[in-house]
């Protein structure tokens, strides 16, 4: 790499005593790494505690770490190409702690809808010359390729949870990120249940907490963008949604969005797909 004469660029190698942070992007919309820049009140303080060593969306400065790994790597996006499947191995090898952020990195993202289709058909729809497209047949989470130390759910992640995860790492404690359902967050927020009170279909009972139960507070059912909670009972919820008027084809779509490839949601959508064809 050609060294640059930019002001404010720290010398190569880690700054004394500071842990290093790297942010990596794979197939994604950039929204989860943007959440770090959305920490308007905390970003500069964070940059004083940590050395931001690699974060292309924010800086062209790259601190190379020839002798030791990055202390924390934050990974956004899913694996959809052979090149990226190799690159994530390199990222893992150069990271002490690897944290994945967002539905793409933890579950494959919306682009994992290809996993339910013939990717050749998919490619033909979008591209005039499908033979030239270099893509894998599936979109897979980072954990399908390398060991992951912590997964933060959400499409997009909650920036306060991201700060909690980074802060917990610095304090060498477990992050306080609960795996219970969105329902608990509604109760804590004092939101009237949209399903019980209004008959609105809602994925809250099977969805991982973390967003703060935004949708029901806006008179809308949860659509599951934080993925499955720790022990989701999708069959029970589906039965209730069917009573409220959802058809099998609707239920396929309900589970098949941003976390479609997360096992509990995948199994639920496949079960409904089988029944819709029966």
């Amino acid at each position, binding site marked *: 790499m*050609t060294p640059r004469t930019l002001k404010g660029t720290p010398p190569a190698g880690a700054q004394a005593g500071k842990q290093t942070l790297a942010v990596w992007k794979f197939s994604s*919309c950039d929204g989860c790494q943007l959440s770090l820049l959305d920490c308007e009140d905390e970003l500069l303080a964070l940059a004083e505690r940590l050395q931001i060593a690699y974060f292309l*969306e924010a800086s062209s400065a790259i601190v*190379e770490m020839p002798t030791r790994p990055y202390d924390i790597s934050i990974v956004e996006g899913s694996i959809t190409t052979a090149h990226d499947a190799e690159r994530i191995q390199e990222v893992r090898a150069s990271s002490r702690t690897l944290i994945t952020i967002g539905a793409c990195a933890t579950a494959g993202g919306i682009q994992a809808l290809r996993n339910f289709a013939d990717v050749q058909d998919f490619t033909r729809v979008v591209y005039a010359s499908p033979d*030239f497209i*270099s893509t894998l047949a599936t979109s897979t989470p980072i954990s399908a390729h390398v060991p992951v130390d912590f997964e933060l759910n959400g499409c997009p992640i909650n920036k306060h949870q991201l700060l909690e995860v980074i802060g917990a790492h610095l304090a060498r404690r477990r992050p306080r990120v609960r795996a219970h359902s969105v329902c608990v967050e509604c109760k804590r927020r004092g939101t009237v249940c949209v399903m019980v009170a209004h008959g609105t279909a809602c994925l809250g009972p099977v969805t991982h907490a973390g967003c703060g139960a*935004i949708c029901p507070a806006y008179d809308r059912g949860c659509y599951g963008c934080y993925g499955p909670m720790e022990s989701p009972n999708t069959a029970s919820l589906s039965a209730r949604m069917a009573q409220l008027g959802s058809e099998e084809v609707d239920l396929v779509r309900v589970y098949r969005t941003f976390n479609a490839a997360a096992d509990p949601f995948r199994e639920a959508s496949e079960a409904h797909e089988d029944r819709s064809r029966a």
Partner: protein
Amino acid sequence: MSDAGETPEGEAAAGGQTGRTRVIRTDYLARVEGEGAMYVKLDGRQVLDVKLRIYEPPRFFEALLRGRAFTEAPDITARICGICPVAYQMSAVRAMEDACGVAIDDGPLRELRRLIYCGEWIESHSLHIYMLHAPDFLGYAGAVEMARDHREIVEQGLQMKKAGNALMALVGGREVHPINVRVGGFYRAPTRAELRTLRDPLERARETALATVRWAAALPFPEVERAPELVALSEPDAYPVDLGRIVSDGGLDIAAAEFDAHVLEQHVEHSNALHARLRERGTYLTGPLARYALASAKLRPLAREAAREVGLGTVCVNPFQSIVVRAVELVQACDEALAIIERYEQPDAPAVEVIPRRAIGHGATEAPRGLLYHRYEIDEDGTILDAKIVPPTSQNQLAIEEDLRAVVEASLDLPDEQLSLRCEQAIRNHDPCISCATHFLKLTVDRG
């Protein structure tokens, strides 16, 4: 994928000089959204080749939208871009309503749409001006590095960005991928009292925006003049945001439904993105420079005065000065948001009913970085049969490459490293969103 992805040499591998041939390349562009690279080849003083390469992997949105419900388009297409999700939601709902014969062209629902869009302009422009673009002018790698010497400036940018995010979070539920936008309107309309909590932060943001215009205008600008055809939405009495005909300074004046008839998308070898061009005349540019040139007379008086005060003129031909135009648009967005909040009356219902029918619908709105076009064909039950999305960056790619060529020709005497930085800055002038661009573009990669 371009070969840039196959020769990872790190950021700014400013290539060496071998004989008369000189290659300037950056394999991983920093401070842009998504994964892109730049390649410039010179022979002596002659520019042989200029490429903005896009190697971000495709996500097949147009394919995965098929078979989904028409009501899902705003939530799904928001995921194309974490930086401008509202733009995707707004073009999607416009297109679906157009298909279903519904027009939300005035009243409080339209006002709320412009309001949340103002929030996205404030957030995105603040991010670009202070965190992505300003470091180029002041010689820093990024905003965090810049904050070591200019903490106050970076902090004021962050506070303005925060005001935009607060507006998106209140109206939309959250900043990234808002949940409150739906075909027909919103799930819940905010109350007057809720919106009024935004007045103080927006008033402060407006003051900061005015200061930003003056600060940006005093930055050192390389001398470059460019004159691509400029394309933007046009409304009779308002600066273009969420509605209007598509017009240009070259005589284009069409409805969104005619977009396909006038814009041709071409496959190129070096990019996972299709290049859009006008069938009649070729390269065109969308975004702040186009909006400003075509509609500066429709700016709110405060924004118009701010532009006049720094001598911006009614057309800005130097793309490096786009940072000043973005600052003027920040004043515009803050001032318009405050005006909407002031006159807002909560609607009786948060949405109008939209009944699907078999039809094709079109929607075009102004994302912070330029025109964003959606077209959908839906079935009588609202199932999406076909989708087409043309994001601003694919429309601007040719203009960006032509800028690069002009910038290189005007800067031949710079050493490689500085020329490389100048080229990257020229790309960032147009705030390209590569995540957006790839995901639609019908690409051909020649692997030879």
